């Protein structure tokens, strides 16, 4: 059963809804963003919002393992990953990401349609949840889809990875806010995977640049059926 959280922290519902809205907004701004540094910063912001929302849920429901989740989020998404990314782009000296495969206004239009779809899909679920947090699932789904769209439209490796990480953020948000947290084991595992994945990404960036002289993934279209 879902425990009512309003008794412990009356504003918790509002806070989480607010966080959800900010997540969506950040998702959109990432979609529209061309500059890679700003992208990383937006990702950092998303991490913070995620942290706040998890913390809120943790405090309001008193689930201790969610506190751990919050701490992991803080460590990983706010501190570690942005730091690694910053270091990476400095080492690889990529600053700009001017090219997208689809122009920005069109991307935004598609994004809005995605949000509509996501909300529509989530409606039956939200109606079930019976809490004030009914919109979070929809928003989390929208975030995931927006990040997905961003992965499709970016032509450089680093933004693609950032989009991938943003997608994880959306998933985390869904996991914590809509369901009040997955079991601890799972969250730890997920976090570990993200961490290792990031390391591998890092290794890859260097390898790719060494082999292809660029991080433009359009170079990597050789394996195809011609």
């Amino acid at each position: 059963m879902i425990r009512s959280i309003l008794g412990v922290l009356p504003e918790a519902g509002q806070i989480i809804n607010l966080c959800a809205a900010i997540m969506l907004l950040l998702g959109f701004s990432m979609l529209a963003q061309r500059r890679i540094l700003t992208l990383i910063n937006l990702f950092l912001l998303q991490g913070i919002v995620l942290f706040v929302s998890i913390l809120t849920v943790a405090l309001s429901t008193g689930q201790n393992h969610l506190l751990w989740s919050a701490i992991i989020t803080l460590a990983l998404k706010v501190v570690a990953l942005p730091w690694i990314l910053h270091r990476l782009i400095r080492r690889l000296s990529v600053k700009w990401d001017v090219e997208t495969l689809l122009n920005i206004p069109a991307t935004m239009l598609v994004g809005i349609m995605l949000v509509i779809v996501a909300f529509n899909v989530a409606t039956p679920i939200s109606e079930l949840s019976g809490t004030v947090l009914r919109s979070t699932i929809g928003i989390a789904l929208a975030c995931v889809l927006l990040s997905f769209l961003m992965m499709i439209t970016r032509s450089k490796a680093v933004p693609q990875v950032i989009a991938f990480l943003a997608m994880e953020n959306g998933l985390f948000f869904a996991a914590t806010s809509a369901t009040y947290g997955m079991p601890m084991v799972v969250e730890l595992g997920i976090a570990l995977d993200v961490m290792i994945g990031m390391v591998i990404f890092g290794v890859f960036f260097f390898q790719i640049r060494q082999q292809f002289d660029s991080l433009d993934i359009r170079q990597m279209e050789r394996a195809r059926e011609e």
Partner: protein
Amino acid sequence: MIEFGLVLGIPFLAALLLAVCGHSRRAPEINALCSLLTLAGAALLTVRVIGQGPLVLFEDHFFVDPLNVFLIALTALVGFTTALFSRPYMRVEQEYGRVSPNRMRLYHSMFQMFMCTMLVALSTNNLGILWVAMEAATLTTVLLVALYRTPASLEAAWKYFILCGVGIAQALFGTILIYFAAERVLGSEGGALLWTQLDAVKSDLEPTVLSLAFVFLFVGYGTKTGLVPLHNWLPDAHAEGPTPISAVLSGLLLNVALYAIIRCKVLVDGALENSFASNLMMAFGLLTVVVPAFYLSRQKDIKRLFGYSSIEHMGLITFAFGMGGPVANMAGLLHMTVHSLTKSAIFFAVGHAAQMAHTQVIDDIKGLLKVSPTVGWGLMLGALAILGMPPFGVFTSEFLILTTAIKHYPWATPVLLAALGVAFAAIFGKVQAMVFGRPVIKPLPYDPAPFPVFLHLGLVLMLGLWVPPYLAEWYRQAAKFIG
């Protein structure tokens, strides 16, 4: 308990050990030995589960039931034979200067780690841990696919990583949705992600949520299974990685991903009480059978060719499970077994052939039968087996699948027939050209490893003519269990 510890513990410890000494001269033997121990553990575990029924361990987070115990055994077996095969194979690669000692260390360590993740994925009861293990399996194999660090292998690994990463993220969303639905029934302490518990209450789960969850899980794990149109990573990854890895990717990883889908399907079927999941699986299965068949004829790279063939077979299995019913489910399980055995055997043979010819280009490999009869016959018989020629076991499952299909879904059979025909024409034509003819290639510096190839083919042959009673019993139980 001890057996189970062996099964999970040995690969993990071996991974750590080989991370230290994986570059030494005896590392391939250590690798094989550890795999053998794992296999022994798996065998003991199987005996025990057959004798004493399902096993639940580690606070319900792990369990071994009829459905997964044989997959565990199969995984351990193929892992062991692959380790045997990789012994001469990787030595030759080292001789050719394609991998450095450091890379050998990475290879051996990651190989064991990969085995570990797959065994965890198979034996876990927790859908969350299943996800984690699948992701970990992806990560380890990404490193293995990129082992050669050539542009092509990096490209393949990158595509594999991104596509499977994104796919698996969808699966996570699906898992969250299941949790969301289950928590309302089981409560957050009640182990809402534990499959056994979910299975017990599956009819109470909210159908709309579960159908959405299944879509995400299906797309997610389906990417890893290689269902069309989510399959694009698969041929690249198969072609560019070291051949032992192609063998385990095809033979094991795809199975594990499919296993995850089946587990979820059982829940969804219970909750929905309609054929939503079945129809989805049948549709995608059919598509996945047809499309790769048409790719096959244009392949120039031998490993890519068999990569597409794996996709096709995954489609066939998915279709079989989609049809459901005792016969089709049994056929699906049988096909999983024989496909992994046959396909890995083929990759073993292909690996040696490609090493002899110094190329994976089909047109440049000729007259294998003359240069190395074992490799030549292995490849020929393997290809015939995978194409569904009796008396090999692949035929058995295809027989059951096709006869069930024409009985219950006759509209699907022309499609299957066309696909199987086209696939036969393509694969057999290419393999025949490689095996027969006047040789243009030279023998290897190390003896090829015929044992793994012929062990697998022998098992497949046996399954075509005679299914041992306990195995049959397992198939029957598991088939009933899938519903």
